[in-house]
């Protein structure tokens, strides 16, 4: 059977695959991937046997760290993050929810001191039955991850 790649193969960098359709753009924006200045290929609404539709992001010359990969778990818990070197997968990150997340999101509480001071935002992450809760280290308010994610 003839196979056609919808997204070009990557020589070196990171492939974030199996992102739920619709989350790809959020991930690009929140993790400031475009600001790396590297070539990025994005596929949106690609067909997937398991997921129906998925998004995929390939970033050239950037190897995501374990910590960064875990931060992705907030949006795409089932995503696969593969680090590529010379067209070979050299590391597969297994995503785990991070205990805390720093500098990615702004605190949704407008009266939180973190907005006006020289500090990075910092949330403690806690998985609850059907939701992920994030507690701001500074104002101690607890938010659902969906509320934190839309604020930035």
């Amino acid at each position, binding site marked *: 059977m003839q196979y056609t790649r919808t997204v070009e193969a990557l020589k070196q960098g990171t492939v974030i695959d199996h992102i739920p359709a619709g989350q790809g753009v959020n991930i690009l924006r929140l993790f400031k991937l475009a600001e790396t200045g590297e070539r990025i290929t994005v596929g949106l609404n690609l067909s997937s046997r398991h997921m129906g539709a998925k998004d995929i992001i390939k970033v050239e010359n950037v190897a995501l760290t374990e910590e960064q990969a875990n931060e992705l778990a907030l949006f795409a818990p089932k995503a696969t993050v593969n680090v590529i070197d010379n067209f070979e997968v050299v590391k597969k990150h297994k995503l785990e929810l991070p205990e805390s997340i720093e500098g990615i999101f702004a605190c949704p*509480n407008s*009266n*939180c*001191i*973190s907005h*006006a*001071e*020289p*500090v990075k935002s910092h949330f403690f992450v806690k998985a*609850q039955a059907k939701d992920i809760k994030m507690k*701001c*280290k*500074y*104002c*101690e*308010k*607890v938010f659902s991850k969906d509320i934190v994610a839309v604020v930035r």
Partner: protein
Amino acid sequence: MANPLYRKHIISIPDFSREELELVVETAGKLKRTPRNDLLQGKLVGSCFFEPSTRTRLSFETAVQRLGGDIIGFADGGNTSAKKGETLADSIKIISSYTDAVVMRHPKEGAARLASEFSSVPVINGGDGSNQHPTQTLLDLFTIRETQGTLENLTIAFVGDLKYGRTVHSLTQALSLFGARFYFVAPEQLAMPDYICEELDEKGIEYTIVDSLDDVIPLIDIMYMTRVQRERFDETEFKKIQGQFVLRADMLKTARTNLKVLHPLPRVDEITVDVDATPHAYYFEQAKNGVYARQALLSLVLNETV
């Protein structure tokens, strides 16, 4: 060995272990029974009130001076370099280089935690926006222990504004370490926030939401009253709610003899003046206890042993 609070920042009640809370309460009791005027000798405390306060500031200043310490500071952020745009981080770096400890109140939530990251000396939170007010909780715990002889297995009703009342949230968190049982009596719009109820659920602590003050009076050891703020309601709604959460002396006929009524003050009309003369009223003694609880905390933070 140094006491566990020596040189520690005092930011938020959930940071405390049960043993640390007990240590402050014990020490406050000792200082009330046997006053000391030497525990802060040679110590200089910075009192940084970026937002006005009456009881908290004056009781901190009283506590420092009664213990033989000195205090510098300001009572209103309007006269400081914060007004000129200086960050809190910079202000605290400088003030902490002058002093042995910094007591602060600030209108923004998280201000004390942030200050602790930039301070070279212990920071004591005197209230950060609607977030925490740990010394109020410590004086409440001290008062509860003083009136009941124990902190264990008490039944407490919180009445009034349970949504915005930060003292209610911290005291609930603290008492849940001692096996308390809670009644929450509040208008629906000012109910206890979900996150506090979820914390209690996780710890398996019993609580009941009730709408009548009369029903709970015979069942409780402590009634913790708070003020329902008029500005949170329209006038008609406020009038309807107001009557439901007012404590009058005649309502206390069914109370246990050990029941004490507490209130973080100021009260407006949620406790009628005739309650003051009953043996259940304890809110003025509670306010006085603020000095002992703050003396205890300052002594523990600034001395290896007390």
